[in-house]
């Protein structure tokens, strides 16, 4: 089955400068009872987005009208903890198409790549600089080119090459599906079993 493609993206960013943001923050466990993949965006960062009373927490970045965009810029060690893919579904469903950080947890990274949400690792100094730039001017844009593996801050010209597994890169560029690929190897798998 064809999957979501990713080629290039130019967008403003939403800054989330905290370190060690775990998947329980991204989507709390009490919202994991659904049996489909849709609709998790409503509860993305639920306990930071809403106060205990149920009203919106105006101090949280997603509720600040100054910030919007398809790129989430996160502090280091983003997505640690639980393996719940719901975390990636929630970020994607909310409208993000890439997450930028100086460090990702392993399972989150795999889950993101399997859902067309591009995780981009940039040096920590650049991540911190970018957080600062966005705070000062929320209109600044970043440009992501998957084919060239480049991440650029448009206004400053800061540009870095990011790493991605070549197999996963091709899957994202062409919208290829892992399971179709594995199914095509059924004979090899059966041979292995014997």
């Amino acid at each position, binding site marked *: 089955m064809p999957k979501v493609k990713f080629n290039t993206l130019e967008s403003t960013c939403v800054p989330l400068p905290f370190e060690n943001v775990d998947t329980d923050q991204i989507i*709390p466990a009490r919202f994991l009872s659904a*049996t489909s993949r849709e609709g998790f965006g409503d509860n993305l960062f639920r306990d930071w987005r809403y106060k205990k009373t149920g009203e919106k927490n105006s101090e949280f970045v997603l509720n600040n009208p100054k910030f919007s965009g398809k790129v989430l810029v996160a502090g280091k*060690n983003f997505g640690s*903890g639980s393996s719940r893919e719901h975390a990636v579904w929630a970020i994607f469903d909310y409208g993000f198409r890439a997450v930028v950080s100086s460090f990702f*947890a392993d399972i989150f990274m795999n889950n993101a790549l*399997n859902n067309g949400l591009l995780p981009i690792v940039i040096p920590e100094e650049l991540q911190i600089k970018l957080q600062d730039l966005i705070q000062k001017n929320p209109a600044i844009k970043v440009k992501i080119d998957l084919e060239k593996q480049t991440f650029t801050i448009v206004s400053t010209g800061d540009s870095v090459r990011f790493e991605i597994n070549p197999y996963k890169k091709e899957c994202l560029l062409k919208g290829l599906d892992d399971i179709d690929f594995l*199914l095509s190897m059924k004979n090899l798998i059966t041979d292995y*079993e014997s």
Partner: protein
Amino acid sequence: MEAKTLFDKIWDGHVVRSIENGPDVLYIDRHYIHEVTSPQAFNGLKERGIPVFRPGKTIATADHNIPTKDQHLQIRDELSRNQVEKLSENCRKHGIELFGLNHPKNGIVHVIGPELGYTLPGMTIVCGDSHTSTHGAFGAIAFGIGTSEVEMVLATQCILQPKPKKMRITVNGNLQKGVTSKDIIMYIISEISTSGATGYFVEYCGSAIRSLSMEARMTICNMSIEMGARGGLIAPDETTFDYLKNLESPVNEWKKLQSDPDATFDRELEFEAGLIKPMITYGTNPGMGMAIDGSIPLSDNKKNEASSSFLKSLDYMGFEPGMKLLGHPVDYVFLGSCTNGRIEDFREFAHIIKGRKKAANITALIVPGSKKVEEQMVAEGLTEIYKNAGFEVRQPGCSSCLAMNEDKIPAGKYAVSTSNRNFEGRQGPGARTLLASPLTAAAAAITGKVSDPREFITQEKNV
């Protein structure tokens, strides 16, 4: 022949094909599933119109969202009920063995797998749950996966996976009285941080690890993910073979499951067991831990300027830098989870509460990891000890570890918990979690405050 680590031996033996510049196609021997992370994977198979490729290699249980009281009644929460029913329906349809709610062998997936003999040395094991690393205690490669990967395994019994780097953690020496395997792993995580092993698969070695029971080894491997590791394993030995003695065990084959003496690791760490004290966490990730009699550090880095993340974390907990936790009031105690929900954990807790009474200010959640643990507690007289001390033993499930069911810690309340994560809201919105061993949890349960378990241990022998 090139010297290999145990991890290499098992991994390389399961590669169906290596993709050039890409991940390996890894064959999976055992796949565990539960109600929360599997329904979307089954939906995927339905959309593709394909069956489960090897249903005999998948084992299912309902554990995450089930109640721990009155399990014979219908689950009250509609979404949870639907999810549990969906699991039963999917297992029935695809011929997957299910140890569901009210099954006499039901329990937490990482407790029942080893208990029922489905986890064996040398296997590759996955589950849509990050604490799958638990099964590494048997000398298996076991790791957590996402739901897309659950679908891969259901469809092809294989997974696409880049090979992680290898780390060896050696813990030598003797543990002090009152120090458990939970304290060992919490100590290591506090030393290397919550991302200290990201990208690695860990092998635990050394005399302190060798001296541990299978239950204690499972606790160590279970929390490998809390330092970011893909998983952790321990080479099988006589302790492992003894645990598995009721099975037809190919022990001679299993004895080969060792790292070669001259095998190299990408990173090596060594710790001295005798320096480890009972541990407790003070912040909102498992790396924020300290000795029970210690003080909260003034900052999270060498510059002595606390980061905003560190201060935000302490603010959530209601703590200040430099503060001591001994004597701090506690409201809840949770004994259970895939980390500390095994029979040995309930014996340790019982050792401290026996002949004493639960403190009046404590609400205790005592939740066995499986029906088998629950039965064994009765058989060993533990349930009676708990009752006499004023504790109610509940029915098995993940319970308050992630609070998907009713077992939530209220906002602002402090819980000393034997589970694995102290993230914000993990045990309920606003809940404040202090991770600790069953001994430390027991000490808090009878005193009503953070207490040093060493003061309550009378035997010379380690419990």
